[in-house]
């Protein structure tokens, strides 16, 4: 019997805000314990939460980026459970009226594009951090109250690799959109993985196992690659699976049942009475929408189809947005998009990295690259000349035409002078000339070199070659 894996992911990402979700403490990683805290996030008696507007904007923006609905009514709820890192022993979250619902993420997987549906993306507060020691644990509330976006996928994933690609695509979108820095080292992204298996073709879902709090994507991949076979093996050998939460042991590379006494989790959700409902209106949403950016995959596909450049070039322009924007301006109305892409990727990007400059600090306009390519394509200068023009552009700005003029870089292509140089070279070098006439093709290169020298590099090498050949053949 063939089985298929059915996987869903709940991804938690810390939002890129200055302050916490319900109080003004800094949203900052790495501070000394319990220094980014106040009575509110410490759950002191008498405190009240006030929601962070930017966090709600970023949540709505995420909704737009994930093709979600952003309804006109949402609210906060209390999720009640006792745990040392939960300062109020309830977490303020969104239960039945989240800020966004029903969207999807498209991403590259294998040879094609996969789509994973998103059930919802909602906003909640993060909890503190438990540190464990030999005889006791210690709690740091710096993280308590940080705005946390929870993105819940439908169980549309079918393999560990697919899950891995989905997570990376999601991370790219969130970084792209300025939603979250998604810095895994700083614990900004955590996943809960829901895994079940079922016979291929079966519609009913199998028994679900949850693996919580994974903090690397490769860890997620490893855990799925262990758990799916485990479940299949269990079923095939006649065993039964139990719905449970398991822990992934990255060292032993296994999932294991959590032996601790599982206290019944009845979260007793009810609407948060201290916070008023959220009713985003058109003006507010329009402001959010004005910050929407093109998704990475869409951008890549557009660059490839609109400009006919290869996928790997498009990838560069997806990975470096300002560079890609520069390219788009340069390529406007141009004939040779590929050449422009080459200049931008091979020359401009290289120079930028070398000098540690950014695109916005360039001394020349994108149109200059377009002009440069046109001049080269028209044979006005050689590609070597082009290099010189580019170097000058980067250093001091200006326009290619002016630089060519100022440095006398224009190639000589017209026959008058060229013929004379060629004839001179042939006359001065009878040896190579004869060699050529006798079939030694390469001998022409020496003569070419002589012409280039005589012309101080200004002769158009292609035309020189043609002219020499013509004259030698007589």
């Amino acid at each position, binding site marked *: 019997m063939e089985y298929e894996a059915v996987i869903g992911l709940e991804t938690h990402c810390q939002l890129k805000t200055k302050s916490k979700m319900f109080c003004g403490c800094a949203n900052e990683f790495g501070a*000394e314990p319990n220094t980014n805290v106040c009575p509110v996030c410490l759950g002191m008696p008498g405190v009240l939460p006030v*929601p962070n*507007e930017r*966090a709600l904007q970023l949540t709505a923006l995420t909704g737009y980026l994930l093709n979600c609905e952003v309804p006109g009514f949402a609210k906060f709820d209390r999720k009640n459970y006792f745990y040392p890192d939960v300062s109020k022993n309830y977490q303020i979250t969104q239960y039945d009226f989240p800020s966004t619902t029903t969207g999807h993420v498209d991403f590259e997987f294998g040879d094609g594009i996969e789509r994973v549906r998103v059930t919802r993306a909602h906003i909640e507060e993060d909890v503190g951090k438990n540190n464990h020691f030999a005889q006791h644990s210690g709690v740091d509330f710096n993280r308590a109250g940080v705005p946390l976006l929870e993105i819940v996928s439908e169980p549309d994933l079918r393999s560990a690799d697919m899950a891995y690609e989905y997570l990376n695509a999601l991370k790219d979108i969130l970084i792209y959109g300025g939603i979250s820095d998604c810095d895994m080292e700083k614990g900004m992204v955590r996943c809960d993985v829901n895994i079940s298996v079922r016979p291929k073709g079966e519609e009913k879902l199998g028994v679900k196992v949850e693996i919580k709090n994974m903090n690397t994507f490769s860890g997620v991949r490893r855990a799925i690659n262990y758990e799916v076979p485990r479940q299949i093996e269990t079923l095939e050998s006649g065993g039964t699976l139990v719905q449970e939460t398991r822990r992934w042991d990255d060292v032993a590379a296994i999932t294991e049942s959590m032996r*601790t006494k599982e206290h019944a989790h009845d979260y007793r959700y009810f*609407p948060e009475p201290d916070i*008023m409902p959220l009713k985003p209106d058109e003006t507010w949403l329009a402001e959010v929408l004005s910050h929407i950016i093109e998704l990475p995959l869409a951008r890549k596909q557009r660059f490839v189809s609109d400009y006919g450049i290869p996928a790997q070039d498009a990838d560069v322009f997806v990975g470096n947005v300002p560079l890609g924007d520069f390219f788009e301006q340069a390529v406007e109305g141009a004939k040779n998009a590929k050449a422009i892409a080459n200049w931008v990727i091979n020359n401009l990007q290289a120079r930028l990295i070398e000098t540690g400059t950014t695109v916005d600090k360039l001394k020349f306009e994108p149109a200059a690259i377009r002009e440069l390519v046109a001049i080269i394509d028209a044979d006005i200068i050689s590609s070597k000349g082009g290099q010189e023009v580019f170097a000058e552009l980067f250093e001091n700005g200006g326009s290619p035409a002016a630089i060519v003029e100022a440095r006398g870089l224009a190639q000589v292509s017209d026959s008058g002078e060229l013929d004379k140089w060629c004839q001179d070279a042939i006359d001065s070098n009878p040896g190579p000339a004869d060699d050529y006439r006798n079939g030694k093709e390469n001998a022409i290169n020496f003569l070419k070199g002589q012409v280039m020298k005589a012309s101080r590099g200004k002769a158009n090498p292609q035309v020189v070659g043609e002219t020499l050949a013509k004259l030698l053949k007589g």
Partner: protein
Amino acid sequence: MSDNDFDIQYVANLARIALLPEQEARLAAQLGDILGYVKKLEELDVTGVEPMAHAVPLANVLRTDEVQPSIPQEAALANAPKQANGLFVVPKIVE
């Protein structure tokens, strides 16, 4: 929904409140009475009535994303029954 459904041990557990056996018995009886009394609400037809979540019709009460001063670590820990190295100490958490 009868008062017999009321399992005081389960609910006290959920509320993380340890009760002595005689407290359990007493509270169970009293809560049984109270639950019996509040059943009165079933007499009403609430079809189509919205639940009243808030007493005032406000919406979108938000704050600007600005950092405000936190309190110093000593103040945060000043009331802690047990603390060490800047952390609130609790019995070992086994996950």
